[in-house]
């Protein structure tokens, strides 16, 4: 099992490094320029307030730059981080099983004396390890970066956000791995995962705009990814943890079952 985990992890170490460097670079840049943004906080807040309530539909709860946490929740964790995380997770999950089926290399692994459960779990754990590193480098590292720039920050909030980001990305990764076992081409995995996330995102926006459709929030994982509340107020919502954990457990077990029983044509 360790051989497959090692193989999977090393095979995709370059993409992990690139993603980590890019997002870490963004985090470094945002924190680095924060002092000058903070100086113009009042003026910028006025501009954003002028955009009206529609801004809140996009997950923005507090339009202010007077603290680092408020600024980062708006600039980085509102949309940029989720988008980069989704592409990272989709690529990882898509290539893991569907990508290997498409290339035909899965035959090499399947012909070895290892059970399909172990193959799936090894690949899954390799991806999860990469995900933990990604979250640690791109979220948790906000603490040492802020310290390096001598900017006031709340470490506990960053720690809580790291947990939320990990659970959110883990749930999407689990869904991606489920699709990776169902489809034989990685393009189909991207399409399925991207399609579902698109529907969820739009549902969340509609729910934010119209109170008539507020129930649509409940079908969107984006609603439960309340990064701003966690980063600014350290207010964790237990429903978020329940939903993300439920998705993780369901998608992982479903993927495991499907992979163990499917016909693999390689």
């Amino acid at each position: 099992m360790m051989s497959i985990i090692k193989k999977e992890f090393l095979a995709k170490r370059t993409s992990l490094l690139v993603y980590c460097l890019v997002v870490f670079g963004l985090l470094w840049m945002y924190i680095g320029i924060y002092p000058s943004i903070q100086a113009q906080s009042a003026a910028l807040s006025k501009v954003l307030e002028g955009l009206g309530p529609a801004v809140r539909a996009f997950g923005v709860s507090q339009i202010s730059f007077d603290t680092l946490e408020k600024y980062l929740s708006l600039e980085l964790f509102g949309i940029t981080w989720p988008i980069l995380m989704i592409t990272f997770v989709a690529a990882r999950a898509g290539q893991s099983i569907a990508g290997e089926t498409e290339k035909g290399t899965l035959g090499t692994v399947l012909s070895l004396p290892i059970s399909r459960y172990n193959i799936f779990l090894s690949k899954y754990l390799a991806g999860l390890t990469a995900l933990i590193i990604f979250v640690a480098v791109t979220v948790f590292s906000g603490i040492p970066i802020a310290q390096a720039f001598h900017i006031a920050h709340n470490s506990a909030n960053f720690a809580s956000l790291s947990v939320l980001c990990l659970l959110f990305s883990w749930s999407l990764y689990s869904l991606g791995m489920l699709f990776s076992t169902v489809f034989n081409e990685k393009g189909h995995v991207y399409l399925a995962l991207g399609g579902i996330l698109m529907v969820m995102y739009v549902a969340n926006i509609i729910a934010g705009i119209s109170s008539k459709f507020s129930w649509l929030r409940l079908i969107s994982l984006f609603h439960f990814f309340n990064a701003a509340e966690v980063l600014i107020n350290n207010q964790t919502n237990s429903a978020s943890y329940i939903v993300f954990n439920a998705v993780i457990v369901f998608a992982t077990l479903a993927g495991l079952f499907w992979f163990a029983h499917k016909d693999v044509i390689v």
Partner: protein
Amino acid sequence: MLRLGLNALAISKLKKSYGNKPALRGVSLTVEAGEIYGFLGPNGAGKTTTIRCIMDFMRPDGGEIKVLDSDAQKNSVAVKKLIGFLPADNQLYEKWTTRDHINFVTSIRGAANVDKLVKRLDLDPRKQVRHLSTGNKQKVGLILALLGDPKLLILDEPTRGLDPLLQHEIYAILKEYVAGGGTVFLSSHNLAEVEHICSNVGVLRAGEIVASKSMSEILAMNVHIVTASFRGDKKPADLKIVGAETISSANGHVVLKVRGDINPVIAKLAAYELADVEIAHAPLEEIFMEYYRGPS
């Protein structure tokens, strides 16, 4: 045909469908330990599907597969310890070197000393697979299949696209492997290869085994090609002989394929004034074509 001795592979009434389309319709065959078994059939006959079921890549709809008396589906992991596999479309990790592949497989199958084999096949283990030719990739695949001291080698068209020199090297390796107690189950389209190395063959057509014979039985089948040229007024334009198939007939020249006893054909031809006659054993291709084409 039942044979005495331990079966390395026994397939019984194997069935598999793709949706509503049956690919295997009750395939049964046995491969005795210590032999090279040729698995033949036209494209789409179900050879690769059979192999996928043996390897547990696909789950059969019915029937049973036993490798050295162990159920290939129920004891999949244990069975794969006994099997070395080379797929038809041997796909390797492009960015890995031969050494990376060997290290990966040995980390799961157990340590193996393959340096001699790597040297014998003239392979540079440090080269990335993406820089290797088709033949060299096939060499890597064969080395991987031989790792972990397998008891049964399953090879799906192992010499496809290889030059004759390399083909003969692979035949030599397989013969040595069998001499050391191993068994080979080999799917192939190369009839010369099958004739050269296989002791028994099974022919699959449209998902069914239509022949399972020893190579000597196949070669002893009485199929002859008779070529005759006629002189004089009598032209055998409609020469009809039971058991003979007219392959061509023009300008007093006729080519016949004769199955079974050749004497009635000779007696019939004797009624004509012959300019020339030639009787030859049909080549192996012709014999297999009998099975491939099926009843007309």
